[in-house]
């Protein structure tokens, strides 16, 4: 008899190099426990995350996507996260409008000191995604 395999959601996380990526590193070196479901992708700044990245991640099979940057006022490039906030607002609304579960896409502010916040975001995200099952709507069918 085959055991029912537990669904392990895959999260693609675009983390800015200066804060959120450092925050996730801190979680690692502090040996904080969080689910191993994240594929972190370091980007220079949350402002450099093109909507194409997000749609592409979903196309390549992400069950959830996270964009994370420095807190307002802390962006290494001063304003990148403010631009990101505008753009991501629109992406979020658009995905919701076409019927992608809103739980599948999040944005967060995580500083280099917030390892604990990062682990919490990921754990919650995984919990949210589990009942939804795999994301097949935008997955490539080529």
């Amino acid at each position, binding site marked *: 008899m085959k055991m029912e395999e537990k669904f392990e959601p895959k999260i693609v996380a675009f983390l800015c190099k200066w804060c959120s990526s450092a925050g996730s590193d801190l979680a690692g070196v502090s040996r904080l426990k969080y689910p191993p479901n994240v594929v972190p992708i370091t980007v220079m700044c949350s402002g450099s995350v093109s*909507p*194409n990245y997000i*749609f*592409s991640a979903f*196309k390549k099979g992400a069950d959830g996507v996270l964009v994370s940057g420095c807190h*307002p006022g802390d962006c290494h490039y001063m*304003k990148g996260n*403010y*631009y990101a*906030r*505008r*753009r991501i*607002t*629109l*992406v*979020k*609304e*658009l*995905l*919701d*409008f*076409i*019927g*992608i*579960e*809103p739980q599948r896409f*999040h*944005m*967060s*502010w995580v500083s280099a000191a917030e390892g604990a916040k990062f682990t919490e*975001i990921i754990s919650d995200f995984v919990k949210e995604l589990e009942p939804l099952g795999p994301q097949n*709507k*935008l*997955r*490539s*069918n*080529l």
Partner: protein
Amino acid sequence: MVTLEELKDNCRQILKEGKVKYIIGYKRKNGQYMTVPAFLDRIEEVDHLVWDPSCIYNLVRYLRDEKMRKEKEKEPDTRPVGVIVKGCDSRAVNILIQENYITRDDVYIIGVSCEKSGIVDEKKLTKKFAGKDIRKLDFAGNGKIQVTCGTKNSVVPAEEILADRCIECTIPTPIVFDVLFGEKTDREVPDPFKTIKELESFDTTRKWEFWKEEMDKCIRCYACRSVCPMCYCDECVADSISLAVKPDTTAEEKAHKIRWVEKSPVISENFNYHLIRAMHLAGRCVDCGECDRVCPVDIPLRYLNRKMEKESLDHFGYTAGMEPEKPTLVSCFREDDPEEFIL
């Protein structure tokens, strides 16, 4: 009301003075009641100029061809091009100026106000007048349109045959112009985003079912892109030409080419194309309705763009094409932009 004779006189005048290179307007083609775009460069041609509820085209699209032509010429004629614009079209000109694609001096803007009326939806018209020999449409003033069938005239309330976007339009008068015909009209629209709100009220599954069915149909003819005055990029992310694979392209080169959207009209790629398209038009689409009108498989493209329009307004108080001297929607921010959704 716009008096066609006054409009024609103005056009003749500016052509005579050599103020413009030519005028982009509307004319009727051998007896058909729907107009087609017309390029008028001789005074006599102005006789054929038309302004009526069948002037559906957003002629601003042609400014792109004009720009490309001018760039190729050695000694280009730098006089402005005259273009007839409705309220929505005028905002498209504003955006081209805002984005430094053209300058204000490149165009002589001839504004016509739609006042309490607008442009017809041909499907609604032919349904209402099914089997009738429609000859001509005219603005009848006060939110009415006169339809001439055979020798008989009937006057109908405009909203019975208007395009949906015109029914929802709150800016019927051109925002920018060198000369304006017709009255500046404020229009009360009870809820300009009614359709969008209805779609928003669907649950996730129903939303997905709705869009999946629509996206399944897309044949990726790119008519929606070709007709859009805002889609002026030399190269589109949807079918990148510089990424073309040639016989001498090495495997390594291929590996380095990022293709965001595949060309095959399968559902995932269609969604991708349309999501990117919606994002690229956020804060830029003026709801001229052209993409929606030309789609050969009747995909309600307007809804995606209109959704972005609604969010731009709700979250950032931004309406496309109103203030060309200010930065565009996504090239600026306010420190207190809403962020409740951010973790």
